[in-house]
Structures are given as structure tokens and as C-alpha cells.
């Protein structure tokens, strides 16, 4: 009984202490981030909701049909530990390259990702290499440097949460996100 009392009071105190702590520095930082993400760059916020709406790209990848038709976003998948674009994506690259060549005001962000295996920062570097592969392919199709940016999330943003090849193959990807006309 005594031990249970002690335990419950420990827990309650922890809750209170954590609460106190967050009222000082912690929440302030959290707010900073919301500020940065929310109002700091309006254009990016708009983009990010567009990015989140890339359900079509993911659905496209499983059905295969809509992949080359969807020009606002697309996902290119990679083999394990590889950065080379598989031949089946030639039409996706060609379509996006042509669109960028036709409209110079159009910009795209290439988001590199890896599966969860291995160390996190090495995966960030690997994801960047994948994004750069797609960038080079788009440049060959007539896009310009100024139209393309890259970011690598490494293994931090999986679309499938499992721990087997079925999930991993969906997570090794570059998402092409159209940022709209500037």
C-alpha cells in the first residue's frame, strides 16, 4: 500500500514537474516552430499542404496507371542502397522535365528518402544522392538549376511504417513536389 502511494505520488509529481517545465522554456520553442512553419513562409505552407495531398502519387505508384499522368507530384522508387533511377521512370522524368522546360517560372522540390535500415545521417546523405539523381535527370530533360531544389529526409519520413521489405520498398523514394509558379 505504502509503495503504491509513493508510486502514484511520484507519477503525479512528474506530471506536475513536466507541466511546470514546459511552461518555461519548452513550449516557447514549440511555438517558435509553429511560427516558422506557419506564418514564416506562406508560400511554403501552401506547398506543404499540396505536398501532403500527394496521395495521388502514392496511389499512383501502387496502381501504376496515374503515375505518369500526375504532373503536380510523382514518386520515384529506388532499389536498396541504390541511387540510380530505374528505366520504368523514364516517362515520369520526361513529363516533368518537359513541363519545367516549357514553363520557366515553375519550380519543383525533390525530396529524397531512404528505408529505415542503417545510421540516420548516412541515410540523409543517401537520400540526397537520390534527389540529386532525379535532379540530374530533369536537367537533361531541359529543366534549369534555378527551378530545382533538393532536400533529404533520410529515413525520418517513411510512408509505410512496417519493418520488412514490403514497407522499405515504398520508403526508398524521391518525391517530386511542384512548388507552383513564382
Amino acid at each position, binding site marked *: 500500500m505504502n509503495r503504491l502511494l509513493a508510486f502514484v505520488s511520484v507519477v*503525479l509529481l512528474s506530471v506536475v514537474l513536466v507541466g511546470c517545465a514546459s511552461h518555461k*522554456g*519548452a513550449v516557447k*520553442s514549440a511555438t517558435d516552430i509553429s511560427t516558422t512553419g506557419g506564418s514564416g513562409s506562406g508560400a511554403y505552407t501552401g506547398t506543404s499542404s499540396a505536398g501532403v495531398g500527394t496521395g495521388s502519387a502514392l496511389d499512383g505508384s501502387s496502381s501504376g496507371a496515374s503515375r505518369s499522368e500526375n504532373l503536380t507530384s510523382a514518386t520515384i522508387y529506388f532499389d536498396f542502397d541504390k541511387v540510380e533511377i530505374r528505366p520504368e521512370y523514364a516517362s515520369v522524368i520526361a513529363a516533368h522535365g518537359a513541363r519545367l522546360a516549357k514553363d520557366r517560372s515553375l519550380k519543383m522540390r525533390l525530396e529524397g528518402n531512404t528505408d529505415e535500415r542503417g545510421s540516420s545521417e548516412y541515410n540523409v546523405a543517401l537520400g540526397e544522392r537520390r534527389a540529386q539523381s532525379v535532379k540530374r535527370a530533369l536537367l537533361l530533360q531541359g529543366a534549369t538549376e534555378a527551378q530545382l531544389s533538393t532536400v533529404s529526409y533520410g529515413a525520418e519520413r517513411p510512408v509505410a511504417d512496417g519493418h520488412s521489405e514490403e514497407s522499405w520498398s515504398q520508403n526508398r523514394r524521391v518525391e517530386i513536389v511542384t512548388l507552383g509558379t513564382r
Partner: protein
Amino acid sequence: MNRLTKTLLGCVAALAFMACTPSAWAQLTIQITHGVSAPIPIGLVPFGSDALLPVDVAGVINSDLDRSGRFAGLARSNMLQTPTTAAAVDFAQWRLVKTDYVVIGRVIASGKGTYRVEFELFNVVTAERLLGFALPATVKNLRLVAHQASDMIYEKIVGVPGAFATQIAYVSVQGTPRSRRWRLVIADSDGEMPRTVLESKFPIMSPSWAPDGERLAYVSFEGEASAVYVQTLLTGARDRVSARAGINGAPAFSPDGKRLALALSQPDGNVDVFVLDLATRTTLRVTDDPAIDTEPSWAPDGRSLYFTSDRSGRPQIYKIALTPNAQPQRVTFEGNYNARPRVAPDGSLLAVVTQDQGVYRIASVEAATGRSRVLSSGRLDEAPSFAPNGQTILYSARGAGHGVLETAAIDGSVTSRISALDADVREPAWSPRVGSR
């Protein structure tokens, strides 16, 4: 705070009768997954007190010592007596239950939420009193004081300073792929007292402690681009110290706290290791190779860096001196994947992620010989970090559904689990030893 505490303690009695399982409350739970062959048997007698205490001091010490793998705490139900004064200790009773050491203590409430924690350590075989201390405590730091007592007991018996009165930083991830939240959390070394110091809807990774224990460097992708921040924990103030186009990653504070080693990418995406001077904000390029060079970690003398590079085809560990035109030397040769080195405080060992037949595990590597020894047993173990006493390595383990934190003794004798209940927990970093907090 004081009144709140009293109110809380008042409703504790009521709450105690409610059906709340410990697991529903505990943020992290410790579970020893492998035992050492001959841990030292010790008895932590419940401390005596007239007050209703918010912390079971002897219980905290017992968990600490158990988790180290060097000790086996005697279950309270097996204790033949529970003395709270030296005079009441009957050594024959403790010899009977084959206990080598016994710790007794008292927590004396001295008003206004302050306490005096007195504890004594006895050698049961010789009936000798090895330690006797009185530590001032408050409601707020009673757990910390218990960890300090653990440190003293550990050092007295093992001969190496303990690392219990320290903290860990880690990243906790919650939510579905479409709506995730990342939190940077700091907790005591046993996973208790977690507090969120940063929360974001974009990834946070690679927390790294400053040697003063007052600042954390980390990578945040807020704004959909990577940047390295240094955050002062007490105030929450954040300083964005690197935000180039491309990769800003893998921060590691130099031993003097004045510089950050980083992985930065060039416009073509190639990643190399750099050192950023925090005062002048100038960067020094350390490596220059078309391969991936990342995950720098400082040698304790601050004169060289260990890092991951795939210049030989697969990731391996290299070391480079911070002198002009220095050439990196390869350190690891066993296995085809060794990454993310962390250097032990005395520089003799590295902790790395090693891959063998598709599983990723934590290994120690002798800095001088490159000889490696696998310490963990998971499928997806990563992000090793040394305790400030060099005796234990903290790392993250996945493959069991969600990410958990585990510790491994450097002699390979024991691993313990600090498991999160509802969040994916990863990227742990053990704090340096700090004087006060």
C-alpha cells in the same frame, strides 16, 4: 508548487484505490533483457521516513544498480529485516540471504518541501561501514539525489564513477505517416522525468550535448529544409548555426564546446565533414572526397575526428587529424558496414552501428586495433552513445514494433531496455556529467 504538491499528495490516497496500472502512467520502463553471470548481490532496504515521500529513494537506487549489470538487487520480499539505522543492521541475517552489501537510509523532512537524505553502505562480509552520507534534497530533486547516491555506491564498490545522475536526450515520434509529431525530449538517465524541449511537425534528428550539459545541438527540418540549431535548455533560446542549401547534419560539439563538427553538402549533393567555429561562424573543411563523409565524432583531445565514409564502396569508419592536408586513415575492417562512430570518454573505444547478414547491431571497436565486438542483439539497432563514465552504451532498437531505447554494458554482459509505450523513440544521446542542475 508547494501547495500544489500538498494537494496532490492529498489526493494520492484517493487515486491509489483507482484502477490505474503502473504501465498506464510510466513514460518509460526499464527491463533487463540479459543478465550478467556474476552480478554483485546488494540489498537496498526501503529508507525510513515519517513523511509521505514522492520518491521511493531506495527503489530508484536499486533500479539504477540493477540496470548497470554489475549488481543484482535483493527483492524486498526476500529481506529478513528492514533496518533503517546502523545499530539495527544484523549482518548474520544478510549473510543468510547471500547479500554482499547492504544499503540503509532515512529521508528526514525538514519543512517547506525540503529533505535530508541519509544513507549508509555496509560490507556484509566484514561488517564494515563503507559510506555514510547526508544529502540535502527538495521535492523537485529527490530523484536526482537518489541517482547521486547510486553514483556514490557504484563508485565505492566498482571503483569507477557512476553515471546515474545524468540525463538523456532523445527524439520521440508519434502519429501516422501523414500527420507526425516529432519531439525532442530530455529525461533522467533512467528515462524518468521526461520533458519536451522542442516539438515540430517536421523531423528532428541527431541531438548532441554540449560538454557543459546546458545546450543541445540538433537537426531540424522545419521549413522543409535541414538546419542545425543550438538550443540553450534553461531558456529555450535557439540559435540557427547552419542553414546552407542541401544537407546540414550530424552536429557534434568539440570537447571544448567552442566548435561543432558537421556534415554539409555541396551544390552537387556531395557530403563532407566540416568544423564550424561557433564564435566566428566560420567553417573549416575537413574532408574532400566524392564519397559520403558524415557522422563526425571528436577524439577526446579535440585534435582529430572519426567519421563514416563510403569511399571504399561501403560505409566504414575513418579517422582524420585536424591539421592541414591530413589524410584520413581507415579504422574499421571487420564487416561490410560500420557507421556512426561515437568515441568513449577515454578515447580507447568507439561505439558503431555494424551490419552483419542483414541485421544492424551496436558494436564496440578498439580505437588502436580496429578489433570489434558486437554488444546488442536486435535487428535494427542504431545511434550508439556513451555514458560519461564510458561503462555503458545507450542506443535505439527497432524491429519490435516501435523504437525503444536500450543500454549495453561495454563488456557485453548486459543489455537493459527503456521502452516507450506509445511513441517511437530514437536517436538517444547521453549527457555529459554535470556538476549541478
